[in-house]
């Protein structure tokens, strides 16, 4: 079988000593930042991007990916122990996990979360190995019109995950597209929106925007409510689930995996939506729905499996189509471009070691997390207790040095400060910056594909709907847009985000 040959190739790449080490660093850092509220994977990956320049591409991506799925683990730890979800995706884990902890079952809740995540991660790895090549094969037939439509779909999908009013999210996409146009136009060599500043000729650096908006801007927002955090300092005992527990959690884990994998592939889906969906599903399936919210172990197992599966499968569109389904994937694409790799369907054929190595590393990383996470609970508990006023200056230091190191230029430092203000203002106005960042990255590619598509069709825009694949993609985008506008879905979104 091809799949096994490919996975074997991946394992030989991922299991080298140095790559295992980078994977370990990634998942360890990821868990740590997942535990620390106020520091998410997006800011961390943005901060570490400059450091990865010197690494081989495989090692860089393996480490960055580890941060992402490690953060899902860490987020659930704080959700269970202190009722503070470190990540949006673990919001629902806090509902029943924290109740279990209060009843003295913190150990069982934590191990259920870890085991659920591991099973989901293993299945999702196999799913990626099966579906990614198929999707890439389809994508290889894409012309410029299809790519343009695909990106429209990606952008529309990104508003589904955005909190706040839809109108704001749509506007943020346009702002991102406009920001993406700063710099020299590739076709005509005309400098656009550069205000005669030579430093802007290459365009705005997306590390600057990401760190400013997600790093600096978030810190200012976090400083508004410096609440005391009380940690459940009780000793965590009874780590292993009982036989009875196993029977209760296995079905929710599998259902959560299926749901999470599906939502993860959809652009804009990702982990947060998956965990919310799984919780609702388990509550509906349960014979004792009244136990949910009072420490039902199924309410931990399902969502935890779902968010990890979703985190994993969100790599599929990124790796096969070059289409980021969330901000983290957008940063991964940025990392690839900086390493000189053109993201898209050709990655699999031209860089098989990178592609399969990354996939295999996810499974190794999940295994590491399962082994590491439970013995290290004591360390994580102590990390939760770090006060934010000691933590945030450190984050700012790493942001400042990191952004300087991209081009060794203080201009980028000032630009980051500016985007910090911008990020704070957007947050205050209920406009989520994630769609803007996606649009910023996709914008230049979108324009290029639109130009080429129009050149081939001699200016006839109907080419976007007469080519079958392109019209299907646009139809999905339109359906999605209509769906989020429906009151039912809007209500669901509100519920999913109101507890953040």
């Amino acid at each position, binding site marked *: 079988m091809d799949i096994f040959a490919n996975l074997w190739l991946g394992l030989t790449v991922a299991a080298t000593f140095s790559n295992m080490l980078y994977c370990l660093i990634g998942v360890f850092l990821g868990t740590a930042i997942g535990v620390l509220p106020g520091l998410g994977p997006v800011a961390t990956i943005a901060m570490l991007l400059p*450091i990865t320049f*010197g690494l081989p591409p495989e090692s860089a991506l393996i480490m960055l990916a580890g941060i992402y799925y490690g953060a899902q683990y860490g987020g659930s730890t704080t959700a269970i122990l202190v009722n503070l979800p470190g990540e949006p995706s673990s919001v629902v884990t806090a509902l029943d996990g924290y109740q279990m902890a209060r009843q003295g079952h913190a150990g069982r809740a934590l191990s259920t979360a870890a085991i659920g995540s591991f099973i989901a991660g293993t299945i999702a790895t196999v799913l990626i190995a099966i579906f990614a090549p198929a999707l890439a094969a389809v994508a290889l037939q894409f012309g410029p019109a299809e790519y343009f439509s695909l990106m429209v779909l990606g952008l529309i999908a990104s508003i589904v995950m955005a909190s706040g*009013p839809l*109108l*704001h999210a*749509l*506007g943020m996409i*346009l*702002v991102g597209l*406009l920001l993406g*146009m700063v710099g020299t*136009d590739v*076709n*005509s060599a*005309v400098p*656009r*929106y550069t205000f005669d500043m030579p430093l802007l000729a290459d365009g705005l650096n997306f590390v600057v925007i990401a760190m400013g908006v997600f790093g*600096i801007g978030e*810190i*200012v927002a976090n*400083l*508004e409510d*410096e609440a005391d955090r009380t940690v459940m300092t009780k000793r965590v005992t009874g780590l292993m689930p009982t036989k009875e527990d196993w029977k209760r959690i296995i079905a929710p884990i599998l259902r959560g995996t299926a749901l999470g994998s599906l939502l993860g592939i959809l652009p804009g889906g990702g982990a947060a939506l998956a965990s919310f969906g799984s919780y609702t599903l388990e509550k509906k399936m349960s014979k004792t729905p009244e136990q949910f919210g009072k420490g039902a172990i199924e309410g931990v197992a399902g969502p935890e499996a779902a968010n990890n599966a979703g985190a994993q499968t969100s790599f599929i569109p990124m790796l096969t189509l070059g289409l980021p389904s969330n901000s983290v994937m957008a940063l991964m694409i940025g990392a690839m471009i900086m390493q000189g790799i053109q993201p898209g369907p050709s990655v699999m054929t031209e860089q098989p070691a990178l592609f399969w190595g990354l996939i295999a590393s996810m499974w190794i990383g999940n295994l590491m997390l399962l082994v590491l996470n439970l013995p290290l609970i004591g360390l994580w508990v102590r990390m939760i207790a770090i*006060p934010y*006023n*000691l933590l*945030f*200056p450190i984050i*700012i*230091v790493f*942001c*400042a*040095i990191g952004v*300087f*190191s991209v081009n*060794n230029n*203080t201009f980028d*430092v*000032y630009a*980051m*400060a500016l985007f*910090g*203000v911008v990020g*704070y*203002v*957007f947050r*205050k*106005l*209920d*406009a989520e910056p994630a769609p803007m960042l996606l649009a910023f990255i996709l914008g230049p590619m979108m*324009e290029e594909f*639109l*130009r080429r598509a*129009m*050149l081939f*069709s*001699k*200016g*006839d*825009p109907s080419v976007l709907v007469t080519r079958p694949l392109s019209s299907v993609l646009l139809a999905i985008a339109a359906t999605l847009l209509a769906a989020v506008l429906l009151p039912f879905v809007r209500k669901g979104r509100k519920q999913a985000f109101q507890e953040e």
Partner: protein
Amino acid sequence: MTGIRGQRDFGIGVIYLALGLAGFIIARNYSFGTAGRMGPGYFPTIISSLLIVFGVITVARGLFRDGTPIGAINWKGIFLITLSVCAFGYLLERAGVVVALLALILISAAASERFRLEIRAIAGLVALIVFCTVVFVEGLGLPMPILGEWFRN
């Protein structure tokens, strides 16, 4: 209050409108081209026009629909954090990385309500500066002078 009923809608709408108008006016300097042969101004003009449309809709919604107010703005936080990052940029090459980091950490830390110069904080401050100097300048070789122009000659 004023006639603005949804502050958040109104605020972001004004931003969209301003960016859209600026984008549109600037893009008029770039040749537009035709749909078949798009000039550098084609895509920016479309995007800016859409942004203007969204700006108008959002502003209108802010005027006619009630929304949650913006709430307190953390002026002290935004001012000190921005100042600290700019101070770092200004001092990095002039005074060197040690002074720049000192300014960055002290000014930004002052943004917190709980800022106090106690032994533990000072120890952390020194440790962080030493760590950054050793790892980033000595270890990774970033071109940041440990002591800048001001301290030479």
